[in-house]
């Protein structure tokens, strides 16, 4: 997947890899025996397969209109029927998976790339940096998420990039708060004190000790946040303020289907089901990760 924010996507993944290799196998073992988390993983696997294989195995174009084929019922040629412009619904849904996943991952990656460092610095150093970052997060959190995203898209304009920016901004404060809370307790721990006494520079303490050790709750939240980001991005699409037609994004497909709700309700059923599945999968994996990383809370 070529994302417009590829560089932002890579940064946090590198950090995650540190945790996953040290404690990862243990977490994975617990996750594998967690039935609902495995349901989530299976749904996600299905979506990834749809994203990768869709374009190879299907013979219809997701954009090209064939008006004579509009509103066809399900048949062997069109397993889910066709839409108002005679485009194959299944093909459009499979193409839609890449937009939804890309939107979610890009927005959360930006949220992590900004939220985690800011939260760590804020919690570790305290003082005016902390005060400033806390007041700013207060203000951003004072806006209900969808309202802030709507307002941003209303002024920035619609389209994939602006939707990613709007959704990312709503997720930054949560990662700041979480990382800051962990950093606050980690900075008092003996090993951090020892590192400081040995003269390790603050930057190195942050990168090597504080950030890696605050990541457990951040990873859980990242998974839940992926679900929330997909939900929000699709909501913007639904209102006609997200990714624009004719791009087969699920939210905008659902929004346009409202015009045919009385004549062809199936056009509303499938895109919504696809969004629901993606959000459910990330929520189940997030819950599973929480149980796996912190068995106490089970």
């Amino acid at each position, binding site marked *: 997947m070529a994302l417009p924010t590829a560089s932002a996507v890579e940064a946090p993944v590198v950090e995650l890899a540190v945790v996953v290799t040290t404690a990862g196998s243990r977490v994975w073992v617990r996750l594998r025996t967690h039935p609902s988390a495995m349901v989530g993983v299976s749904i996600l696997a299905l979506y990834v397969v749809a994203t990768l294989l869709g374009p190879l195995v299907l013979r219809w174009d997701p954009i090209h209109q064939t008006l004579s084929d509009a509103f066809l019922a399900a048949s062997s040629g069109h397993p889910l029927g066709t839409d108002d412009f005679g485009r194959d619904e299944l093909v459009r849904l499979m193409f839609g998976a890449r937009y939804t996943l890309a939107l979610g991952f890009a927005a959360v990656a930006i949220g992590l790339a900004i939220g985690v460092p800011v939260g760590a610095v804020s919690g570790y150093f305290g003082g005016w940096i902390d005060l400033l970052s806390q007041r700013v997060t207060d*203000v951003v959190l004072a806006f209900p998420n969808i*309202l802030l995203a*709507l*307002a*941003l898209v209303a002024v920035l304009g619609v389209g994939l990039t602006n939707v990613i920016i709007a959704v990312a901004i709503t997720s930054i404060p949560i990662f700041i708060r979480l990382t800051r809370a962990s950093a606050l307790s980690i900075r008092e721990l003996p090993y951090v004190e020892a590192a400081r006494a040995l003269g390790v520079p603050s930057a190195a303490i942050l990168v090597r000790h504080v950030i890696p050790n605050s990541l457990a709750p951040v990873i859980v939240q990242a998974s839940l946040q992926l679900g929330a980001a997909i939900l929000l991005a699709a*909501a913007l699409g639904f209102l006609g303020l997200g990714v624009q037609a004719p791009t087969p994004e699920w939210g905008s497909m659902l929004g346009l*289907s409202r015009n045919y709700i009385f004549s062809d309700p199936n056009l509303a*059923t499938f895109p919504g089901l696809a969004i629901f599945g993606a*959000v459910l999968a990330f929520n189940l994996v997030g819950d599973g990760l929480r149980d796996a990383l912190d068995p106490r809370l089970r």
Partner: protein
Amino acid sequence: MRRLLVAIPTLLGVATVVFLLMRLLPGDPAVVIAGPEATAADVDRIRHQLGLTLPFWQQYLSFLGRLSHADLGISIRTGAPVIQEIFTRVPFTATLAFISLLLAILIGVTAGVIAATRRNSTMDVSISGGAVFGASMPTYWLGLMLIILFAVHLRVLPAGGSDRGPISLVLPAITLALFSTGLIARQTRSAMLEVLGQDFVRTARAKGAARTAVLIRHALRNALLPIVTVIGLQFGTLLGGAVLTETIFAWPGVGRLLVDSIGSRDYPVVQGVVLLLSVSFIAINLITDLLYAYVDPRIRYG
């Protein structure tokens, strides 16, 4: 009192963000607002109306000054004061949000208590599963599915509008409540599980108190704090969700006004609605904070 003071910088910050948002419009806001068919005179009139001829800091100060008189400007679409446009819609959104919250609390808390008392039973598993489903369900899709089922196929409830009295509230309220119901149920379950394991609950049971009395008077009362927190946060979700629910069901509330205003580039109204809903959210959070002290007398704010 201290809590009130802490809210002031947040309020100021919210007002500043709302002010700056308008300035993020690419190009000349007056041209964007006037639209493609406007004449130079139209653009000039709007520029003056919005005070865009003044220097930046003066615009900001006059914006804050007008806010202190509850003056949110004039709607470009209708020419009426923004505050008036909003306040004729508030009762609709308030009714919808209130009924939905009531529904979510009633069902969510009950389900959470039942799930906690029958931990790991089939009942618990289905309630916990249902809660995840509810929290993953796109509001906008649920609304459409309910319309298809109850308005298109069964023809028992209206598909939208507000002209059929309480019956027109049924589908929007259920749609808006589901997400919050799931979260409240989950939070209630985990808070109850924590409390049910404690000594005073065992003591209450041992002294022979009735089962429901132990559950409600001892356990639930002590589990209330995290539940109240989640309920308070749900208000933000409900206000945001109202934007979608009102659009789907043609419910003439503030959320629908926002979406319509974005569509017609009526930015003063957009500003006003975003500001009003965020300020309501801050106020609700403040009230939640104050409720803590009532729910748990150990908490005192100086």
